[in-house]
């Protein structure tokens, strides 16, 4: 089982509106790709991402996302103005499907992401089918 990570540059993201950005992310997630964005999402965008995720959840394939925003700490007035002009917030956002990402945890000095290497969902389904057939 492979794991694909896609890194998306701040420039690419800056060209997209909020809605476009969210569907761009979710489209990848639903194809089991973990996405690393070169920007910190805005809280409102995070809420939109959760809303869109809830709309996309189906009982069989897609059960949701794990994500984590890392903000850059230094926030002076100058940086804030620069960010405002650039239209984005410095930092990173990691988003992935729950079937792949077990957990993203904040440790004192780093962020830790625990990914699954197999896709147990599929395994379980296959086994489930076999059992039914055997009855």
């Amino acid at each position: 089982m492979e794991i694909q990570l896609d890194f998306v540059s701040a420039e690419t993201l800056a060209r997209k509106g909020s809605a476009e950005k969210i569907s761009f992310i979710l489209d990848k997630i639903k194809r089991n790709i973990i996405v690393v964005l070169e920007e910190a999402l805005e809280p409102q965008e995070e809420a939109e991402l959760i809303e869109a995720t809830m709309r996309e959840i189906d009982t069989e394939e897609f059960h949701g996302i794990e994500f984590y925003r890392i903000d850059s700490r230094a926030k002076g007035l100058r940086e804030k103005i620069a960010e405002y002009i650039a239209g984005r917030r410095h930092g990173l956002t990691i988003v992935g499907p729950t079937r792949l990402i077990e957990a993203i945890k904040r440790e004192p000095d780093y962020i830790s992401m625990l990914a699954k290497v197999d896709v147990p969902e599929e395994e379980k389904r296959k086994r489930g089918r076999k059992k039914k057939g055997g009855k």
Partner: protein
Amino acid sequence: MLSELKKSLRKLLKIFKRKKQIQLGFYGPVNAGKTTLANRISLDWLGKEVGTVSEVPHETRHVQKIENIVVTTNNGELRMNIVDMPGIATQVDYKSFKAFGMSEEEAKARAREATKGVIEAIKWLDNVDAVLVVLDSTQDPYTQVNVTIIGNLEARGIPMIIVANKIDLPEAQPESIANAFPQHVVVPISAATGENIEKLYEAIQEHLT
């Protein structure tokens, strides 16, 4: 001196802009104790419980409104409508409900309702005057869901109090919630036993009305 002046000025302003009744939303992750708290307040002041509390996640799948609660504290009357929200989550897996003895169909139906409940709760952000963010003191406070909820309230300028719930449990660490969100008022309580609930009413009066 100056801060005293500011305070009295703010109090004066408050008298003018004070709403008769605040619409107080209960937000938080799933299973933090939002409904338990809503029930306790409702039982204490209206004499009845309103919602179903459960260890099964997503028990509250619709917004539940408790209207016209009048609380009397040492500082006077506190009038509010409580809006108990479904918990915010980034994932809903119907299989997790099956672990609580539900059938496949029941579990799937609940999962579908749960996703709608999350959307409803987010939409309600536009209709609340103030919020209690209810967190479970036995859990790691620095989760993305918590950060997203608090970030959205900040961005919208909605005043909030963070409720560090479940302090009756020995493993509760309300101080780690205060450390994670130092810019906000944190009130440790137990919705289950009622411990410190008076402090919460006073804090609502002081910071949210």
